[in-house]
């Protein structure tokens, strides 16, 4: 019974990682940049909803919408100011800029909200479902899982079936050639960031609901974990992000339960390394043959 509980706990942690990894991998896959600030956009989303609901006393629905709008705008603005001028620069320059943006958002949140964590308002009230004495299903985790699957399907359909989606695929490979096809590259990348950031807002919501507390550095660790999850699944690959996130959560929880809580981080990272040594482009990543 306790194994099942541990597994379920792992799945709920994993679906949180997966939810974050989806936005991460989306931006990576299309804009070909590691958006290190993604985690911090999650934090901004959570704080926006917090401010709207707890301070300004808006209704939950409005607070959530506000969070999504703020994050979407933020994503687009960050892209315009910090990343767009660097289209032709080396990927590392963009990576460092993203880190700079991450520091910026954290410092700003620290200035505005202070260092103390805030209790996230319960925008919905979830009661855990008690199957029996030992087995408790957390309804917020079930929600997270459901929403994550929904988003994954929607994203996959969007990218493969819509015109904008096809434009994204073209942009992800060769911006110049995409432009020659009549694709508005800047707009496409903006849309990518808008979608990625609105997903971050959703992740912020579920993070807040599940764990209850948010602070200026809330996004940093989930950001890294999502990065790991995205890579594990094959970075840029949307179902891969889902798989990577879930696996990461399950492995993390099971190794805490059955091996060692002290070394669980090390175990998770070791699994990642082993997977990548066997499959160098992640579990679902396409192997790209370089034609000589």
């Amino acid at each position, binding site marked *: 019974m306790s194994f099942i509980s541990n597994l379920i706990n792992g799945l709920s942690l994993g679906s949180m990682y997966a939810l974050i990894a989806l936005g991460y991998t989306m931006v990576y896959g299309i804009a070909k940049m590691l958006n290190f600030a993604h985690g911090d956009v999650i934090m901004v989303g959570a704080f926006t909803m917090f401010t709207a609901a707890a301070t300004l006393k808006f209704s939950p629905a409005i607070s959530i919408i506000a969070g999504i709008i703020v994050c979407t705008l933020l994503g687009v603005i960050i892209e315009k100011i910090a990343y767009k001028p660097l289209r032709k620069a080396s990927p590392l320059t963009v990576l460092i800029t993203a880190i700079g943006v991450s520091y910026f958002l954290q410092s700003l949140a620290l200035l505005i909200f202070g260092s103390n964590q805030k209790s996230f308002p319960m925008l919905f009230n979830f009661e855990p479902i008690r199957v029996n004495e030992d087995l408790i299903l957390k309804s917020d985790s079930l929600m997270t899982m459901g929403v994550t699957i929904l988003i994954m399907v929607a994203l996959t359909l969007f990218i493969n079936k819509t015109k904008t989606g*096809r434009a994204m*695929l*073209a942009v992800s490979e*060769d911006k*110049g050639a995409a*432009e*020659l*096809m009549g694709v508005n590259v800047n707009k496409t990348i903006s849309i990518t960031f808008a979608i990625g950031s609105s997903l971050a807002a959703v992740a912020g919501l579920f993070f807040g609901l599940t764990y209850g507390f948010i602070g200026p550095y809330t996004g940093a660790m989930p950001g890294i974990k999502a990065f790991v999850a995205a890579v594990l699944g094959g970075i840029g690959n949307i179902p891969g992000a889902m798989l990577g996130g879930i696996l990461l959560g399950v492995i993390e929880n099971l190794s805490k339960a059955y091996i060692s809580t002290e070394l669980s981080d090390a175990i998770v990272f070791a699994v990642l390394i082993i997977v990548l040594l066997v499959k160098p482009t992640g579990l679902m990543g396409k192997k790209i*043959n370089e034609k000589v």
Partner: protein
Amino acid sequence: MAMLRVENLEVFYGVIRAIKGVSFEVNEGEVIALIGANGAGKTTILHTITGLIQPHAGKIEFEGHDLVKTPAYKIVQMGMAHVPEGRRIFQQLTVLENLRLGAFTRKSNSEIQASLKRVYRSFPRLEERKNQVAGTLSGGEQQMLAMGRALMSDPKIILMDEPSKGISPLIVMEIFNMIREISSGGTTVLLVEQNAKKALEISNRAYVLETGKIALEGNAEELMNNENVKKAYLGE
């Protein structure tokens, strides 16, 4: 009035002045060849016309619209297609996906299907390989794909950068036939070629580019008989 007009174009790469005041015109329905040695600046001119590079000075007009400040994707929407140097096909997408992207600016599905049929007719190899990942096509196949993709947008004018490069003789003939066909179908062609002989054979007029400047211009026949051209570009 000329369909495409380039006036006093100046292009720099950093401090290097690659195009030094080039002017030329392309009239509707013409096939214009732009020939010149390696590094003369042919590719640079095409890139500047389709907006991938910003010129330092000069004017580019297409059907009366100024192209200099127009973003590349809008230029495509105006009806200009570009078969770029090095092909720039989408390596990780399939042949069919590449062709679909070629028709990105078009709305009507039936018209797109018709274009697709036409492209397949011209390049049967592409139909055979329609589900192959484009990056693994052979060099020649990739070139065909690049041309097919450009045709998918049903352009008014098509800019081609060395379409015969790396193509086997039989297909080279086919490609030049294709260009003729495209032209007779009413599409204007601006053709950049190393294969000057073939290019001059099918074009109305031509410009000879030398280190960023127009050295010679005239109608194709004249140029073909020009002693300098013969020596420098026809290898006679």
